[in-house]
């Protein structure tokens, strides 16, 4: 990894809402800073000592919220958390009012998770805080894509030489959108794979290959990123049954045998036996737990680089 970049320079972005405006240089800087945090190397970035990070989670989350909290604590920040179930949101307070209330309590960095696409952008428009999107509807989940990139960067000599297949429900996946963006920005090839009912219109306009055949995707890729299949999608008629989905798009131990260089990623939480066979989750070529562990240094890097001095 090139260490020549000035690690102390912060990013020229005010927020991390999605990766649209982030260049390959920006992404590289975040990865290098994350590697430094991971390795305990001094980044020369200012600490967040005595500064306040507010996590606003309007959707349930275990790994993302915990990971952000751990990252903030390691940067010596104070963390205050708002969950939809325990806040005045349930009393009908608007997102604008909630955000402005937290800003009045001196929160400087907001980490926002919300079911509505554009919710983090909305908070950024209505407060002076630095906003980090922790997932907004199906739009973006940039820190997930960054930790996935970090994971690939740690396992392979060059991300730009990789071909990644993203398999599953692309329509409803913010992880897929942010990963497509991050991987294409870094120069990697991307194939998306799923039944037509789970792929959005004009997907090829995102500069990806599209296939409905898992074997074609696995033939082409170095890494398969499997997406969690939301079980309620069956109810809305987007696929006929879980067994049929598994038979068509589930990755099994047999696939790992047939493709000896294939590695597996999954943003979690996994549905064992649906998009991924149980044995694949625990396989030595599964990078799933690495992804989780990489969440903390990556989120430390994002917060440290975005924090205003």
């Amino acid at each position: 990894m090139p260490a020549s970049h000035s690690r102390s320079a912060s990013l020229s972005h005010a927020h991390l809402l999605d990766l649209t405006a982030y260049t390959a240089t920006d992404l590289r800087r975040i990865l290098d800073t994350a590697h430094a945090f991971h390795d305990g190397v001094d980044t020369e970035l200012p600490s967040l000592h005595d500064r306040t990070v507010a996590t606003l989670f309007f959707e349930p989350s275990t790994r993302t919220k915990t990971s952000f909290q751990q990252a903030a604590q390691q940067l010596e920040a104070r963390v205050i958390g708002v969950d939809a179930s325990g806040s005045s949101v349930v009393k009908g307070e608007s997102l604008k009012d909630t955000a402005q209330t937290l800003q009045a309590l001196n929160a400087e960095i907001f980490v926002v998770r919300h079911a509505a696409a554009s919710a983090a952008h909305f908070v950024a428009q209505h407060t002076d805080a630095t906003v980090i999107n922790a997932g907004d509807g199906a739009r973006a989940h940039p820190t997930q894509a960054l930790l996935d990139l970090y994971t690939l960067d740690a396992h392979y000599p060059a991300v730009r030489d990789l071909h990644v297949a993203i398999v599953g429900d692309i329509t409803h996946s913010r992880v897929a959108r942010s990963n497509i963006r991050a991987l294409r920005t870094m120069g990697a090839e991307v194939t998306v794979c799923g039944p037509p009912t789970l792929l959005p219109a004009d997907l090829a306009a995102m500069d990806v290959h599209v296939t409905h055949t898992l074997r074609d995707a696995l033939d082409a890729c170095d890494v398969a990123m499997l997406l969690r299949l939301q079980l309620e999608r069956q109810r809305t008629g987007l696929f006929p049954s879980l067994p049929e989905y598994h038979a068509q798009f589930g990755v099994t131990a047999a696939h790992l045998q047939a493709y000896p260089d294939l590695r597996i990623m999954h943003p979690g939480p996994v549905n064992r036996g649906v998009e991924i066979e149980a044995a694949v989750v625990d396989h030595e070529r599964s990078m799933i737990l690495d992804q989780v562990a990489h969440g903390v240094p990556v989120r430390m890097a994002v917060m440290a680089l975005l924090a205003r001095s």
Partner: protein
Amino acid sequence: MPADYAESRPNVLLHGGTVIDPYAETATRADVLIRNGHIDTVAADLDADVSDAVPRIDCSGQHISPGWMDMHVHLREPGFEHKETIASGTRAAAFGGFTEVACMPNTNPPLDTRASVGFVKHRAEEGPVAVHPIGCVSKERAGKTLAEMASMAEEGAVAFSDDGAPVHNAGLMRRALEYSTMLDVPIINHMEEPSLNPDGHMHEGAVATRLGMPGIPACSEDVMIARDIELARLTGGHVHVAHIATARGVELVRRAKSDGIEVTAEVCTHHLALTDDAVEASGLSTHTKMHPPLRSAADVSALKAGLADGTIDAICTDHAPHAPHEKDVPFPEAPNGILGLETAWGLVGRHLLAPGVCSLMQAVQALTVAPRRILRLPAPTFEPGAPANLTVFDPDTRWTFTEGHIRSKSQNTPFVDTELVGKAHGIYRNGQWVACDAVPAR
């Protein structure tokens, strides 16, 4: 109630302007003498012949046409007076150059009875802008059983619609069209098949895919238009396509008209001005969210072609006020709709006239003759003795629309800081003259 910004002027001479007659398709330099609120004489150089006691209005450089009509607005009263009232909505209409509007019945309670139609008529009675209520097709706008259409028509309802939602049940739409033939009124349908866009917030396409925003396929309009054309064929009823927004929809209407089916269509000014790119370019401003959504560039081209060749009859706005706190939420949570009355003519000038999409005569026809023909309303003429009902405007003033130009009670327009081409300067109706710029903002 009479509006405080309107001047009572039973006798007046509009001089120095060009009279646009959309029936005769003529444009003539002429003065217009009005006596007792009625057209007296239209002829060149009347100034010397008319007594000094008759006040003059200088119309030099202006055009004078029959008063414009917007056949699709939401005045929100009764029930949503925090968004708009009949008083504030007609104020916006007067500023925009409209002398008549037809208002949609999705109020609370909805306009589904003789009494509620009468209420709206009564509230607008004495103002300079006429308000024609559109009644509900179904009781309580619930899409189940027919509302009392005959009673409402007697009270002044000019058409029937469950706008805001489609008449979803094909059997109900059939009966509504059959029943409407007895009353000689159109059924206006909001064309969307809801099962095709259960969670959609914007046009389904590359932009929505990139933004991760659930989409509304163009097809959800097209299948409903196709259905209603076949129902009009079956029943002989008149179906009017509200706010047409798709290329296929235009083609379906074009073919149905050539088959002799009684189908008409209107297009909103915002659908001629913006595409789904505006959603992204505006940073997902909720002022770019409406139903039907802003569609693709190909759809916009087809709408313009449809207007130019007469497939689309009328230009409207779907003026849909929402209070600031209702629109100040993340995009998926915002209600649908934007203001339209104040920006309508300036958008026509910029997007239709300046690029030569259609002629000035065609644009005036789409704002005067067409909506009244569709709604069976008497059309204002320049015949001596006819009630004077006029709009004074120009097609080429370049001006920047600002918040200060908003006359509605709400502010939900994407056109603030946009350059518009053409401006309405005054309206005359009901014996009253309104200088558009004199209409107060509040």
